[in-house]
């Protein structure tokens, strides 16, 4: 049976050759686009991975204040780690001040150079340049370049895996090869440059490492942290000045406490000594007082008064004698004696109080001395518990966190995910379109199928028969698409933007095995699934029902349109009749829009980034400081930035906690006087789906500490993932001094010693960086937009065509009655406009909404906010374009109405 039916498959193909050719071409085109887009991305991914492998890309890198000693190097090597000095100088060209060349020695083992042209420099006056820099400056092999007064001959143009993205600083948002590049010179040339004294900045001691066996970044990092150095070893005045203000305070504290202890002891000793004379002083004054009493008593006895004066009675006795004495001379003499005795008694009591005070003070200082001694001991004990030694390591960056390495691969992840997803969507759509045709065939062959059933042919036989053609067409088309795409004919166009941005050699187009399987398996499998689902129900009728070609009257068709005008009623009936095709049109529109929205979201995102970065970046210059001065420059606004990490969707992103003053003119942020309540940037909130009032946790991976904040507000700031807090609170939280800062914002360029800087970011850099997103994405945006429009046109054309084909007899009939083309069009074609118009109203926002939900997953590796809000005018434009495309297709199909001959209706319908 199948043999006979197979012959019919070929005849069906011949009969509907144009239809199946078009569908086949669409599938081939879809596969072609998927293989080209995904293949290009895979080519770049594999190419950069292979290159990284060939060039022994580092597992990580670290910087140190002073070069490691031989022993330290040996220790690291004993940890089964290959270590490589990759010291460099950043050199500003004499004649182009805004151009910095990073000067390296040629590499031997890790991050080896791959020469895209020329060869490695071998002479002291030879040099190799990084590819993108050379391209931007139009430098070729055999040209020369002047560095520090020496003319170097360019012997090679090279790329290196550790600068896949040639970023000057790892915090840079984009590469700018016009302003930054790499140069590689011989060891002799490097030493000559070093000794020339013409370097504007200190040499950077960068080491790269590669594990020979198991990766143990933490182990290496712990060891490097344990290497302490004496600050005096560092030959950098700016560092020394900074160190004196910051790292040197430990010694100051120890010294101050020690001095306090000594001084306290001295005071105590003196007071003890002083108190030891207290008795002598008291005895002396008592002796003087007692002697005077005795003298006065003797004088009174001689005058006939028998009294003995003592300390307690002298006042009373003398007053009695004075009052009873007749001699005025004696009275005067006694009054003087009493006055003298009063003074002596007062003096004696004063001395007593003084000596008592000295005694108390002596006892107090004794306690104080003990306390200060305890303080001294406690301070020393405490300081010795903390590690205040100066760690030699200044930075540690593992490969996974290095934005320069595998940058191309990471960038292309989006293309791969989008391409594969869009392909699936397309195949489902195309399979559905094919199934509509198959259903049309089944309906028109209803009586034949019924006859075959009655003769014993099974449903599975027929199911197999009817899906054979779609499956074969899908398979062949997929294969054709794959073969054409495999030639790489369009790949250079897709990959061009990457080659013009990343520093990579040009790779041969490569199609991974999964794409081959995808191309030849997915279209037929999707075709089988969709067609079986759709056809199965159609073949589920009884032979008699099929032979009679009974039309199932669906309930929803039985609506009363009696009061509606004829044309509207007719169109509604027609819509119900062609509900499958109508759904296919709307479904096709939806899926096309879904694909379109990927491109649109990419475009909107890039566009919004470019616009928002420009609007939100209020500063002209941002200086990240290595050694900030005590006082910030007058024209700059200080801030405190601290880099943390936060993970989402499998990617670990940098998040900057930024402490600012409330009156910082560059950020429209009202920070809270709190260490918990913070304000976050909109980019951060969008990327991590954070809402006001929620808690957010970021990690300090170096210190292995987590910080939890409560989001009290979200401010519009797209240029980076920021957590804003009050600078004083942040200083306090991080244990920094009250005047600490490490970032300066300014509205003009300020004069800062380059040695103090980690990096300088200008507003122009930020804006340019944002535009890079757009240029990298544009090929994909164009491809997706073009593909979706073509798909929509083809689906609309095919479905509208099948609708009128299915009504060919009726069209013929009404033409017999005298309906003219315009009227036939009104009945059979124009009604679709309402479907398209109404469908688009629902489908456009729906597709945008769905893609908005899916899009974050597609760009999960991209470090930016997700502002994909489209203006209303965008939706209006899409709507107008859809209607425009409808009218275009309609115009094509109008001519087809003339092709239905009047004789069609004269044939028997039985």
């Amino acid at each position, binding site marked *: 049976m199948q043999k006979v039916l197979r012959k019919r498959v070929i005849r069906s193909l011949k009969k509907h050759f144009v239809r199946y050719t078009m569908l086949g071409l669409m599938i081939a085109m879809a596969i072609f686009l998927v293989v080209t887009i995904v293949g290009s991305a895979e080519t770049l991914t594999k190419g950069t991975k292979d290159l990284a492998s060939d060039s022994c890309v580092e597992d990580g890198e670290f910087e140190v204040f002073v070069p490691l000693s031989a022993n330290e190097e040996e220790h690291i090597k004993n940890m089964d780690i290959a270590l490589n000095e990759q010291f460099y100088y950043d050199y500003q060209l004499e004649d182009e001040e805004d151009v910095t060349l990073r000067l390296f020695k040629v590499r031997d083992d890790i991050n080896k150079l791959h020469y895209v042209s020329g060869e490695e420099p071998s002479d002291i006056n030879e040099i190799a340049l990084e590819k993108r820099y050379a391209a931007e400056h139009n430098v070729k092999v055999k040209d020369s370049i002047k560095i520090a007064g020496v003319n170097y001959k360019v012997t090679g143009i090279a790329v290196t895996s550790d600068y896949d993205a040639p970023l000057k600083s790892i915090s840079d948002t984009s590469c700018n090869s016009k302003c930054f590049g790499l140069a590689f010179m011989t060891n002799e040339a490097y030493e000559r440059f070093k000794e020339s004294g013409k370097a504007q900045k200190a040499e950077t001691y960068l080491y790269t490492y590669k594990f020979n066996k198991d990766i143990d970044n933490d182990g290496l990092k712990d060891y490097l942290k344990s290497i302490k150095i004496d600050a005096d070893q560092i030959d950098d005045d700016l560092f020394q000045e900074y160190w004196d203000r910051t790292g040197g305070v430990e010694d100051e504290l120890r010294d101050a406490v020690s001095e306090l202890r000594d001084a306290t002891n001295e005071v105590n000793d003196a007071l003890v000594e002083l108190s030891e004379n207290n008795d002598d002083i008291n005895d002396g004054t008592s002796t003087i007082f007692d002697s005077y009493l005795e003298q006065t008593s003797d004088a009174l006895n001689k005058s006939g008064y028998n009294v003995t004066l003592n300390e307690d009675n002298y006042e009373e006795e003398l007053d009695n004698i004075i009052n009873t004495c007749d001699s005025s001379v004696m009275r005067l003499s006694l009054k003087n004696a009493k006055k003298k005795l009063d003074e002596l008694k007062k003096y004696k009591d004063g001395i007593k109080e003084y000596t008592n005070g000295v005694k108390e003070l002596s006892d107090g200082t004794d306690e104080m001395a003990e306390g200060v001694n305890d303080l001294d001991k406690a301070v020393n004990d405490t300081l010795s518990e903390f590690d205040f030694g100066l760690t030699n390591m200044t930075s540690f960056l593992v490969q996974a966190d290095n934005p320069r390495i595998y940058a191309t691969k990471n960038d292309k992840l989006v293309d791969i995910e989008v391409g594969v997803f869009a392909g699936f969507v397309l195949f489902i759509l195309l399979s559905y379109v094919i199934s509509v045709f198959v259903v049309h065939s089944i309906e028109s062959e209803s009586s034949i199928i019924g006859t075959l059933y009655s003769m014993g042919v099974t449903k599975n036989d027929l199911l197999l028969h009817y899906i054979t053609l779609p499956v074969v067409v899908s398979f062949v088309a997929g294969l054709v698409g794959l073969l054409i795409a495999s030639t790489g004919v369009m790949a250079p166009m897709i990959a061009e933007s990457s080659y013009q941005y990343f520093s990579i050699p040009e790779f041969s187009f490569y199609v991974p095995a999964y794409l081959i399987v995808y191309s030849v398996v997915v279209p037929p499998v999707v075709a089988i699934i969709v067609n079986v689902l759709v056809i199965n129900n159609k073949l589920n009728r009884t032979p008699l029902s099929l032979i009679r070609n*009974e*039309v199932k*009257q669906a309930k929803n*068709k*039985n609506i*009363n*349109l*009696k009061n509606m005008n*004829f*044309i509207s*009623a*007719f169109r509604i*009936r*027609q819509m*119900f*009749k062609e509900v499958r095709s109508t759904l296919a049109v709307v479904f096709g529109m939806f899926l096309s829009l879904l694909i379109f929205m990927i491109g649109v979201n990419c475009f909107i995102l890039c566009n919004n980034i470019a616009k928002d970065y420009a609007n939100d970046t209020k500063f002209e210059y941002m200086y990240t400081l290595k050694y900030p001065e005590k006082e910030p420059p007058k024209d700059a606004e200080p801030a405190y930035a601290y880099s943390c990490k936060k993970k989402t969707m499998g990617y670990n992103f940098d998040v900057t906690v930024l402490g600012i003053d409330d009156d910082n003119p560059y950020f429209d942020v009202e920070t809270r006087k709190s260490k918990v309540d913070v304000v976050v940037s909109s980019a951060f909130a969008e990327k991590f789906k954070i809402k006001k009032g929620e808690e957010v946790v970021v990690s300090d991976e170096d210190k292995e500490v987590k910080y939890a904040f409560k989001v009290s507000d979200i401010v519009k700031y797209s240029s980076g993932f920021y957590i804003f807090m009050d600078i004083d609170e942040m200083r306090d939280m991080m244990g920094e001094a009250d005047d600490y800062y490490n970032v300066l914002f300014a509205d003009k360029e300020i004069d800062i010693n380059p040695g103090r800087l980690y990096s300088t970011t200008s507003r122009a850099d930020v804006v340019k960086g944002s535009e890079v997103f757009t240029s990298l994405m544009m090929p994909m945006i164009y491809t997706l937009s073009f593909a979706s429009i073509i798909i929509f046109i083809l689906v609309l054309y095919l479905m509208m065509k099948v609708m009128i084909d299915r009504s060919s*007899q*009726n069209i013929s*009939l*009404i*033409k*017999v*009655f*005298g*309906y*003219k083309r315009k009227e036939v069009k009104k009945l059979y074609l124009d009604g679709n406009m309402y479907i398209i118009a109404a469908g688009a109203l629902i489908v456009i926002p729906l597709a945008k909404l769905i893609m908005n939900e899916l899009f974050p997953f597609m760009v999960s590796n991209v470090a930016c906010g997700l502002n994909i809000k489209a203006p209303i005018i965008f939706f209006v434009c899409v709507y107008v374009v859809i209607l425009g495309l409808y009218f275009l297709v309609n115009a094509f199909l109008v001519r087809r109405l003339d092709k239905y001959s*009047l*004789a069609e*209706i*004269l044939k*028997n*319908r*039985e």
Partner: protein
Amino acid sequence: MYVEVSNVKKSYGEGGSHVQVLKGVTAGVERGEMCVIQGTSGSGKSTLLNCIGGLDDVDSGSIKIGGEEIVGLKKDELYDYRRDTIGFIFQFYNLIPNLTVRENIEVCRYLTDSPLDMEELLNVLGLKEHENKFPSQLSGGQQQRTAIARALIKNPKLLLCDEPTGALDSNTSRDILILLEEINRKYQTTMLIVTHNNSIKDMVHRVIYLKDGEVMKTYVNDVIVPARELEDL
């Protein structure tokens, strides 16, 4: 003569497959007459009907309807001719399946500015109670009534019926013929009925007999038998 067919020739195919279907047919029908075109299968009766209806062109000859030549009319003029003058009834009804009875009739009502009264027509044809049904919910006779109503709604001057009872049983056929008879009487509609049913010729005014593309004989019935009295339908 209202319908004047003069020396009409029509052939199909080329070379070896060339078939001369009409070999110089000449015939005429008076206004308001019912006329049967009879003949064996392949005699050219349906082709002649199609040519008169402007559905098919002729190789040569002349066809005049109400004195107006339709041979050589342009496409648009033919549309106007069919729209203004002709009503068609087919053997297999050719109703539009997704339209109700009323909507099927409205397909032709839409084409004229002065249609017959829809309600009256529905009542006359016994379709009132079925007006909201779809063709699949009707019997063959009801479907043919609907097709007749559709043809009549625009009050055509010439009604062309191609085997109008060919798909119906005897009783239903009789009902349809009675209906056509009544319509002819009521609206004075000229009717050309193609049929192979030998009994129908007795109920019409004129008979044209075709054989192998030629008019073998044509005659006017002296006695017209009412449709209800026809036998062997």
